[in-house]
């Protein structure tokens, strides 16, 4: 099989390349050629196609998400804002919290257990890459009708996946949501949140500064996970029958991730990490381009040094592999031995695969031949940005004109009440929550059935300065409200999470969000998206809490039918003294019951 080197790309400028199959548009491909001044090699095409995908580049959402910054309220608490792996918030006494929510909707439909499990794994690594100890998870779930046959397949698998992965990591699950609506049939929403704790002066960033520093890959071996699309590249030319059948499903190894957490914490403690990045959806492509782009600007990588689970993998496949439980770090030559020793202690495979340079180029070789030579920023940060057309959905005003007051009054109130209480959206979620460990590590102050989770932080990291403080977290969302009015719906989601946090006695400080929508190429969906982001940004300003990060999930639809626009909002708050937390529920006989608000 011919290796598509940079030299070969020069010699065969007109070779047809399978960019369409990789989801790239004509003009996007033309731009890559323009940036490089030649056609990309197949490895470069692999990198640009994943980095410029909607998932990694936010090309359709970027123009709207900007409001979260431009309209952001002043906040003394914000230490790291949007754009990093996760936002970081000052919670006092020298402590900081980092949190983020992310979707794993499509994989959870294909293989519910593994899809949901790897969703938890991914968000946990995001939190680790900030230099934090992950301390709790939450999950926000939406399924089709509770009695739909496919829900019977998807729901138990998703819950088991979250339960087996999160429980095995020793992260208490401190809350979440479960909702049912026919619009989610064939497209469940699985949003996972992770929160981490760190010392405020120990924040790590995804950056690779310092020429001569080593680029280290550590964690699980790289296998053919989630690279269905890459097979068109692995065959020398895409007309050739692609030889291998590659799985599109990633399987998680929570035990490896648990070791990776403990290993990373020791690495941070030993101060042997200059920069760090988790390997998420776009694997090595993403980690190398982003680290290089944010550092001194250049990096040399020997791709053939990447340790493989399957020795037949081609460079393009290695670049696109979504194998889980991997991290990349930048380490000074002096610290490499200490770094390796800590990895060995935790039985974590570790390999130096390259070096930071000041050339401004990301250069990758494969057994001595150059297969990638690009300015990393063009892949990481300078992807396409679209102003997609917007259009208010036909029937939006009719939908709003239908006044519930016009519904017939029920004649039998008792039956009406029972049917409300018996509906899956109201019924107890204990079937789900009892599969989650809410106690592990002994710092959970509130979890199920409370409306917000509360954690004591003073004892999480033994040895560090202690504090009486606690943090509170809630996630909320309501697709039906957002469908009626995406602007107000997003605001209601924020208001609910904000209230749930405030009700524990915490002061809400910051917001994360996961925006689950249909296809951005549909102007009506894009209108919903624009309205929802505008609503959320305005509400954040009104309440004085900045958005610190989040995730956009588009293309949530079966056929042409999109799910309800479903912004899910997470709010983090702080309690100065966690001992003062307020529980919900009537705890004392004879106490007065007061209704606040309208």
């Amino acid at each position, binding site marked *: 099989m011919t290796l598509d080197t940079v030299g070969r790309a020069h010699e065969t400028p007109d070779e047809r390349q399978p960019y369409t199959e990789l989801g790239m548009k004509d003009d996007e491909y033309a731009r890559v050629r323009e940036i490089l001044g030649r056609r990309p090699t197949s490895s470069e095409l692999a990198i640009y196609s994943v980095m410029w995908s909607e998932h990694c580049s936010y090309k359709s959402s970027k123009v709207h998400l900007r409001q979260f910054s431009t309209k952001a309220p002043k906040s003394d608490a914000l230490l790291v804002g949007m754009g990093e792996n996760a936002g970081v918030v000052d919670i006092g006494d020298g402590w900081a919290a980092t949190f983020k929510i992310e979707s794993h909707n499509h994989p959870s439909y294909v293989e519910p257990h593994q899809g949901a499990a790897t969703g938890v794994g991914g968000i946990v690594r995001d939190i680790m890459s900030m230099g934090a100890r992950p301390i709790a998870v939450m999950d926000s779930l939406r399924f089709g009708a509770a009695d739909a046959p496919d829900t019977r397949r998807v729901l138990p698998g998703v819950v*088991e996946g979250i*339960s*087996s992965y999160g*429980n*095995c990591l*020793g992260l208490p699950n401190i809350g979440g949501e479960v909702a049912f609506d026919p619009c989610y049939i064939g497209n469940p929403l699985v949003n996972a949140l992770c929160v981490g704790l760190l010392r405020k002066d120990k924040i790590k960033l995804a950056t690779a500064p310092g020429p001569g520093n080593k680029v280290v890959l550590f964690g699980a071996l790289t296998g053919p996970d989630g690279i269905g699309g890459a097979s068109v590249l692995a065959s020398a030319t895409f007309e050739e029958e692609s030889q291998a059948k590659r799985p599109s499903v990633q399987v998680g*190894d*929570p*035990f*490896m991730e*648990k*070791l990776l957490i403990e290993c990373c914490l020791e690495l941070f403690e030993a101060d042997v990490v200059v920069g760090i990045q988790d390997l998420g959806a776009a694997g090595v492509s993403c980690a190398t381009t982003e680290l290089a782009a944010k550092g001194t600007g250049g990096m040399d990588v020997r791709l053939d040094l990447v340790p493989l689970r399957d020795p037949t993998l081609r460079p393009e496949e290695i670049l696109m592999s979504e194998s889980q439980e991997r991290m990349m770090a930048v380490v000074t030559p002096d610290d490499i031995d200490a770094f390796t020793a800590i990895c060995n202690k*935790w*039985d974590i495979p570790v390999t130096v695969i390259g070096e930071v340079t000041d050339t401004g180029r990301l250069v990758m070789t494969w057994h001595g031949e150059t297969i990638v030579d690009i300015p990393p920023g063009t892949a990481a940060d300078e992807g396409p940005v679209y102003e997609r057309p917007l259009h208010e959905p036909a029937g939006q005003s009719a939908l709003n004109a239908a006044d519930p007051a016009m519904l017939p009054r029920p004649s039998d109130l008792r039956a009406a009440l029972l049917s409300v209480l018996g509906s899956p959206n109201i019924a107890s979620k204990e079937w789900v*929550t*009892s*599969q*989650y*460990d*809410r*106690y*592990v*590590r*002994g*710092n*959970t*102050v509130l979890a199920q059935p409370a409306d917000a989770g509360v954690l*004591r932080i003073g*004892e999480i990291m*033994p040895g560090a300065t202690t504090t009486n403080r606690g943090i509170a977290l809630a996630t909320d969302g309501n697709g039906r409200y957002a469908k009626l009015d995406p602007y107000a719906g997003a605001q209601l989601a924020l208001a609910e999470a904000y209230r749930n946090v405030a009700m524990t006695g915490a002061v809400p400080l910051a917001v994360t969000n996961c925006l689950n929508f249909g296809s951005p190429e549909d102007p009506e969906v894009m209108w919903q998206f624009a309205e929802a982001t505008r609503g959320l940004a305005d509400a954040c300003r009104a309440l004085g809490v900045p958005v610190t990060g989040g995730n956009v999930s588009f293309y949530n639809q079966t056929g042409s039918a999109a799910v309800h626009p479903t912004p899910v909002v997470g709010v983090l708050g702080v309690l100065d003294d*966690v*001992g003062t937390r307020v529980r919900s529920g009537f705890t004392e006989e004879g106490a007065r019951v007061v209704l606040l608000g309208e």
Partner: protein
Amino acid sequence: MSGARVGVVTFPGTLDDQDAARAVRLAGAEAVPLWHADHDLKGVDAVFLPGGFSYGDYLRCGAISRFAPLMEELIPAARAGLPVLGTCNGFQILCEAHLLPGALTRNAGLHYVCRDQKLRFENVDTPWTSDYAPGQEVVIPVKHGEGRFVANETTITGLEANGQVVLRYVGNPNGSLNDIAGIRNEAGNVIGLMPHPEHAVEELTGAPGTDGLGFFTSIMKALVNA
């Protein structure tokens, strides 16, 4: 200070070691971290094997851990009378190491279950349970997917006849034979239980109440009076 030193073992994948150490401290003893890969019990007076997913619970819970270098020290020490308490994964490891009879298998309901569990003490004649009374009912969390205690009939009959059943579920969460939640060896120094007393030692966190603290105050007294 008392000088009572309780070792808390960490295997790869152990989760509740920090909680266990806290509980030991709350009872006034010193918690000594023990590492699975060391052939070293650090001269502790008792050992706590905490819960978690050692080696990911792959293969069978506790199956790989029981071969750890530390276990090579712990097994003879336990046979010689060192007080050892294993909870959840720790219980599974003790069974795999044949320090306790029987085995823990997949919950009858097939799901992981985390709940505040009502339990009843049967026999409290062990260094870890002297602060409880026979017949006493407590609430302590359980959280496991493989906690159904099984053994052959002779073993079960023997456990019952010898008073080796320490703790029974009131409302069986996993299908354990005879509602068994915790047992001890014949000598009484080795105990295993599925519930997590270390998660029920403070009013602020975890389960309602502090019903689990007694395990730690018991061992503290046993060691100080020894």
